């Protein structure tokens, strides 16, 4: 049994967080997300009708172990992000927010300046802020300073399935962070997810790789297993990588 992950006041058995975009049908989405055993599922505010009790996405996510994580995808500034967060707190009854500010509509790369501004304001307003950011170790520390409850650095451009292209920076972030580190974006295969966990990430967020797979339910299970395996390996302490065999005639044996 892996260690429980705690973020703010919530505890998570599963370290696989998921998303709701790109599925072929809401039923498929529900089945896949249940198969993933994910307990934190992000949903884009722009995609749901928060005024509508029968919104298709939201009704399919009503399940005892699922916590909704509204995200601010689509906003371009800190001001819009704060508005979106307040809208979601009021309508969805959660003070958790995945802060996504990507003014660039092509690669959806996060704006570090607006994100830091919004994070500071949202923490003051009582939100549990989960910021989606570049794998920038300094920005992570700045965000920690303003009180975010975790950081969500990207592994590669969102939706790219390219894996952990930012590994060198993720290593530094994981080493330095006092809040959970969740690798978000770019994870395209269960092996990427397992690897992120082995590196010591506290959780991963996966959406496209599950939603766009030919069999989203099976892929969701594969990710679940990979994340568990990777975490287990991390907790069990991986043996160090050695480039060469130990020399048979040590240079310091004369000291004995």
């Amino acid at each position, binding site marked *: 049994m892996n260690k429980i992950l705690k973020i703010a006041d919530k505890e998570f058995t599963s370290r696989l967080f998921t998303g709701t*975009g*790109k*599925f*072929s*049908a*809401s039923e498929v989405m529900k089945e896949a997300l249940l198969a993933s055993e994910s307990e934190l599922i992000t949903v884009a*505010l*722009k*995609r*749901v*009708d928060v005024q509508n009790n029968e919104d298709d996405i939201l009704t399919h996510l009503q399940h005892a172990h699922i916590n909704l994580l509204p995200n*601010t995808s*689509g*906003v*371009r500034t800190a*001001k*819009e*992000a*704060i*508005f*979106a967060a307040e*809208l979601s707190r009021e309508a969805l009854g959660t003070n958790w927010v995945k802060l996504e500010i990507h*003014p*660039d*509509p*092509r*690669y959806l790369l996060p704006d570090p300046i607006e994100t830091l501004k919004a994070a500071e304001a949202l923490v003051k307003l009582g939100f549990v802020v989960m910021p989606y950011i570049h794998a920038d170790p300094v920005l992570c520390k700045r965000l920690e300073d303003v009180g975010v409850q975790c950081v969500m650095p990207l592994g590669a451009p969102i*939706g790219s*399935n390219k894996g952990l292209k930012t590994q060198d920076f993720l290593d530094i972030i994981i080493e330095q962070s006092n809040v959970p580190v969740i690798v978000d974006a770019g994870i395209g295969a269960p092996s990427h997810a397992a690897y992120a966990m082995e590196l010591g990430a506290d959780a991963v967020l996966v959406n*496209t790789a599950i*939603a*766009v797979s030919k069999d989203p339910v099976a892929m969701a299970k594969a990710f679940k297993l990979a994340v568990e395996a990777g975490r287990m390996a991390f907790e069990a302490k991986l043996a160090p990588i050695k480039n060469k065999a130990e020399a048979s005639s040590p240079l310091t044996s004369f000291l004995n």
Partner: protein
Amino acid sequence: MANFITLFDTYNWDNTLESIFNKTTVEVENALAKEKLDLEDFKALISPAAKPFLEQMAQKSSMLTKKRFGNTIQMYAPMYLSNECQNICTYCGFSMTNKIPRRTLTDAEILKEVAFLKAKGYDHILLVTGEANKTVGVSYIKNAIKLIRSQFSNITIEVQPLDQEEYELLIENGLYAVLVYQETYHREEYKKHHPKGKKSNFNYRLDTPDRLGKAGVHKIGLGALFGLEDWRADSFFTALHLKYLQKTYWKTKFSISFPRLRPHSGGLEPKVEMTDSDLVQLICAFRLLDEDIELSMSTRENEIFRNNIVQLGATSISAESKTNPGGYTVEPQSLEQFEISDERSTEEIVKMLKGQGLEVIWKDWEHFEAIEK
């Protein structure tokens, strides 16, 4: 700041067309093997040399579209607000010289049409007018946007080109996107098809996306009207325009539409034919050039074409569109701008999409900027 016209003027139509027709099989193969394509690759993919590679292009286009957009299609509905127009456009049913009854919807009529579209499930709307400054100028459009804003997450307009300040005013009032098609990038042909009215000013129209970018609109829709001139050259210039705009206005989203000339009252025969195969080739070429561009497909195209194109690269479609003001409920019998080809109901289209494993996205926007008001 420089604008697109400066760049555009360094190109020559005939040379561009010649260079497209000179593309070779090897250049097509190279373009297909690349991950990031440039405009020379795009030329190869729209060239006759790429025809034997159409299936390969379609497979790649489908895969890239699914990766980016998932198994989804967005739906929107056009709503014509007015057919009054002071332009002469040789191909358009609303052209000033066409003797048709003119109508501009009142607030009450707009709301009646809106109620019809809301009942169908639409949340993204495209407002269309002709070009008649006195009746359907900025204040009319602003009023229409304000009137319907609470009912639609996403409001797009396709109206006469406006000045930057006018766009800024409309954006403040809830405008999300603007579609403005150049019709043709062939300067002389453009003049022939637009002999009179404000639209006859080629440069003002060509400069419109720049004004929109400066005004900070969320999305700009580009396109050429296929049939007026060679579709390959017009598409190259559309792509050139797109690439320029993406670099200059990096916060703006873009979409491409592919209107082919349709029959209308007082009609014009296409000068250059564009076959179904050509259109598929072009759509795939745009997807290969740009993974994230929205590609829109209207009811101008027929059932079979639309049933298939939703798997090939298109990301948003309309259904049961009416191209006459009041066409849904107020005055269904009035003359249309053009005849649509796919007349299936919204329900039928949704069923068709679901049957193909595609989730319909009705809502993909929120007025997050509302706090500014």
